[in-house]
C-alpha cells in the first residue's frame, strides 16, 4: 500500500495503514545505519531547510544526519542566530528561507501548531520536528520502530508513560501512533501533570491516568520515561526530592512491570531524577537504539516527502530490502 504525504505535521490524523507504511519505509534505512558506508545519493541536489526556533541538539543533529546520508544539502537556522529577535515574524523568516528554494522545511517551534500555521502558507513540505507541547511525530515513529524491533510487535501492548504528560509532545505522538495499533496506555505522574482530560484526547484508545507508580508499572510491556521539563513550567509544582520519592524509575520498581518490559526515554536523561543510572544503562533500556532509529525514521520521512517519486514507493536501491521487511511489519 502506497501513501503520499504532503507534510508531516502530526501523527494524530494518520491511520494505522499510513503509520505502518511510514514504519515499513524506515526499515531499509535502519539497515543503512549498520552499513560501513552510510551515504546514499537518493536526494542529491535536494536541499532540506532545518529551522529550529527552539533549542535542540539531538533532533537537529538527527535530521541533519538523515539529510546528509540521503545526499541532500541542508540549510540551518537556529533560534539564537535568527532574525526573530530583531522583530521579524515567523512567517517572514520562513518566507526568506523558502526564497532560497529548499525542497522541504523541517521545523521546531515552541508554539503548539506553529508548523500547521506555516504549512498553510508554504508550497514545500513541512516536517514538524516538535511543536510546543503538541506533537513530535518523528519521535513517535522512532519509538514505535524501537518497540517493534525489541518486542516483535507494536500491537495490543500495555504502555506506561511516566512524568510530565501534560507538557509532553512525545507522549501525544506516541499515544496517537500506538493507540491505533490497539495499545493501552497508563499515564502516571504528579496530578498537575496528568490531568484527567488526557484520557479523552484519542477517542478509541484506552487511556487511564493513575497517580501511584506501582499501579502504573504493573503489567507494563513498555515504559516510556519523560524528562522533567522544568524550563517549560512557570513554577515547578514539585521539588526534585518529592518527584524522586514518588515517581523515579528504579530497579525495584521496574520489577513490577512485565519481565521483558522495555524502557524508553526520548532524552536528554536527568540521571538520578526521573530514572536511576542502573535502569538507564540496564538491559531493558533502549535509549541508544532510539537514537539510532531516529536517523532511519528521519531518512524515511525526508525521502518520502522530498524525493518526488511518483512511480515507486521506495528508492530503487532499497527496493529489495523493503520488500523483505514488509512482512516484518504488524
Amino acid at each position: 500500500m502506497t501513501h503520499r504525504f504532503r507534510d508531516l505535521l502530526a501523527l494524530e490524523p494518520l491511520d494505522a495503514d499510513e503509520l505502518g507504511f511510514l514504519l515499513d519505509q524506515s526499515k531499509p534505512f535502519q539497515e543503512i545505519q549498520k552499513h560501513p558506508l552510510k551515504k546514499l545519493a537518493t536526494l542529491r541536489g535536494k536541499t532540506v531547510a532545518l529551522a529550529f526556533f527552539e533549542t535542540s541538539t539531538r533532533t537537529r543533529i538527527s535530521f541533519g544526519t538523515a539529510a546528509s546520508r540521503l545526499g541532500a544539502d541542508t540549510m540551518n537556522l537556529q533560534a539564537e542566530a535568527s532574525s526573530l529577535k530583531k522583530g521579524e515574524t515567523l512567517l517572514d523568516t520562513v518566507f526568506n528561507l523558502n526564497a532560497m528554494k529548499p525542497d522541504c522545511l523541517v521545523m521546531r517551534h515552541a508554539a503548539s501548531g506553529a508548523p500547521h500555521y506555516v504549512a498553510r502558507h508554504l508550497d514545500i513540505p513541512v516536517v514538524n520536528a516538535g511543536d510546543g507541547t503538541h506533537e513530535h511525530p518523528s519521535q513517535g515513529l522512532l519509538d514505535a520502530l524501537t518497540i517493534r524491533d525489541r518486542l516483535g510487535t507494536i500491537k495490543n501492548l500495555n504502555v506506561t508513560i511516566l512524568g510530565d504528560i501534560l507538557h509532553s509532545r512525545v507522549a501525544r505522538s506516541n499515544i496517537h501512533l500506538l493507540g491505533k495499533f490497539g495499545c493501552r496506555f497508563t499515564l502516571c505522574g504528579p496530578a498537575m501533570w496528568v490531568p484527567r482530560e488526557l484520557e479523552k484526547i484519542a477517542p478509541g484508545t484506552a487511556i487511564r491516568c493513575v497517580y501511584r507508580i506501582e499501579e502504573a508499572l504493573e503489567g507494563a510491556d513498555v515504559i516510556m520515561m519523560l524528562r522533567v521539563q522544568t524550563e517549560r513550567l512557570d513554577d515547578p509544582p514539585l521539588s526534585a526530592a518529592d518527584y524522586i520519592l514518588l515517581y523515579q524509575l528504579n530497579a525495584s520498581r521496574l520489577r513490577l512491570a512485565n519481565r521483558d518490559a522495555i524502557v524508553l526515554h526520548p532524552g536528554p536523561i536527568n540521571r538520578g531524577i526521573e530514572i536511576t543510572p542502573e535502569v538507564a544503562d540496564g538491559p531493558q533500556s533502549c535509549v541508544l537504539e532510539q537514537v539510532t532509529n531516529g536517523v532511519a525514521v528521519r531518512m524515511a520521512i525526508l525521502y518520502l516527502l522530498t524525493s518526488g517519486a511518483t512511480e515507486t514507493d521506495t528508492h530503487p536501491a532499497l527496493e529489495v530490502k523493503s520488500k523483505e521487511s514488509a512482512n516484518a511489519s504488524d
Partner: protein
Amino acid sequence: MLLIKNGRVVDPASKRDAALDVLLDGEKIKEVGAAGKVSAPQDAQVFDAKGLIVAPGFIDIHVHLREPGQESSETIETGTRAAARGGFTAVCCMPNTKPVNDNASVTRFILDRAKVAGSVRVWPIGAASLGSKGEAIAEIAGMKEAGIVGVSDDGKPIATAKLARQVMDYCRSLDLPVIEHAEDVSLAASAVMREGVTSTRLGLRGMPAAAESVCVARDVQLAELSGARLHIAHLSAKASLEQVRWAKSRGLRVTCEVTPHHFTLIDEDVQYDSRFKMNPPLAAREDREALLAGLADGTVDAIATDHAPHEPAIKDVEFDRAPFGILGFETALALALEQLVQSGRISLIRMVELFTTGPARVLGIERKITAGQPADLTIFSTERAWTYNVKESPSRSRNSPFDGRNFKGGPMATIVAGRIVCKG
C-alpha cells in the same frame, strides 16, 4: 421626514409585534400607526419595509474602536461603519485605548471624533481605575459629566476585591453601571484557550472555566455589599451564569451579556487558527448549552459583540502569540437569527430584546418604538440569504472566524437620528 411603511414592527418594550408604519421626523419618532394609516407629507422619504422586521435601534454595549492609539486596527470612523452594517445604532466603546479613557479629556476626544466621523452613536465607557492599572480609582465623575455611560477595566478585571468594592460604592453614588471583565488572572496566566480535552489534545495552554467564575462570585458578593449595578461582560461559563442567576434571585442589580461567538462556537472548534482566539476563550459544549438556556430564560440580559479588531500584522501569527479578540458587528444579528431564532430556542421578539431593551436596561435608558423616542431603528430580514465576506468589511481588521459563512437573514437598514446610515 422618513416613513417606514409595510414593515412588521417588533418592539419588546411595548410587547408589540404587528404590521405598523413608523414616521420619523428628524431625530424623533413622530408617529406609529396601523399599516397605511400614517399620513406623511408629500416630500417625506419612504422606506418600503415589506417583508422586513422593524426593530428599535440595536445597541452593542461592548466594543473596541481602537481610537485613540491603535488606528491601524480600527478607528471610530471604520468601526462605526462596520457597526452600522451590522444593524447597530449605538455602540459602547471600551476604555482600553492608548491612552486609556480614564479622564474627561479622552472621553471628550472620543465623543468629538464620533460627532465628526461616526456613522452611529458612540457611548464611551470609562476606565474604573487610572490607566486601568487596578491601583487608583479613575476620574469617574469627570468622565460622567463628559458623557460616559459606565465604567470598566475591560481587557482585565478590576484588579483587587478592595478596589472593585470602592469602584462599586462610588459608581452607586454616581448611578453608573460597573462592567466587569471577570477573570482571575493568576488562574488564566499565559493561557491561550479554554482548558479541557481540546486544549490538552492540541497542547495549548488552557484556562479553566473557574478563571471566570471565581471572579464573578467575588463581584456579585461585592455588588450585594455595595448595592451597585454590576454588569458581567462577555459571560462564557456555566458556573458564572449560575452566579448571576443566584444574584438575580436575591434581587441584586446584576446583569450580564453573552457574545455571538460564545453562543455559536465551542473550544472544539479551535484549530491553531488565531481567528478563534479571544478572551474569554471559546468554552465547553456544556457552557454553550447553558448560555443558550440563559438567553432563553431571561438570565442573560444582552447580546454584545466584544468587537475586537486587530490588524493582520499582529493577529495573523502563531496561535500562542496572537492577541485575543475577533470582529463582531457584521455577523452578530445573523448568528443570533441562526443560533437562537431559526433553531427554535427563542422567539424573534426575545432576540430583539437582547439587542435593544436588554442592553438599554443595563445602561439605565429606554428603547421603544413610540412617538417622542429617538428615531433610531434597525430594519432587518429574517430570510435574505447572504455570505459574509470579511474582505468587504469597512473594518480595518479581518479577524473573523465567520468569514465565508452562509447566513439566512441580516440587517437591511440602520437608521440613526432619523437618517439611514446604512442600507443592506
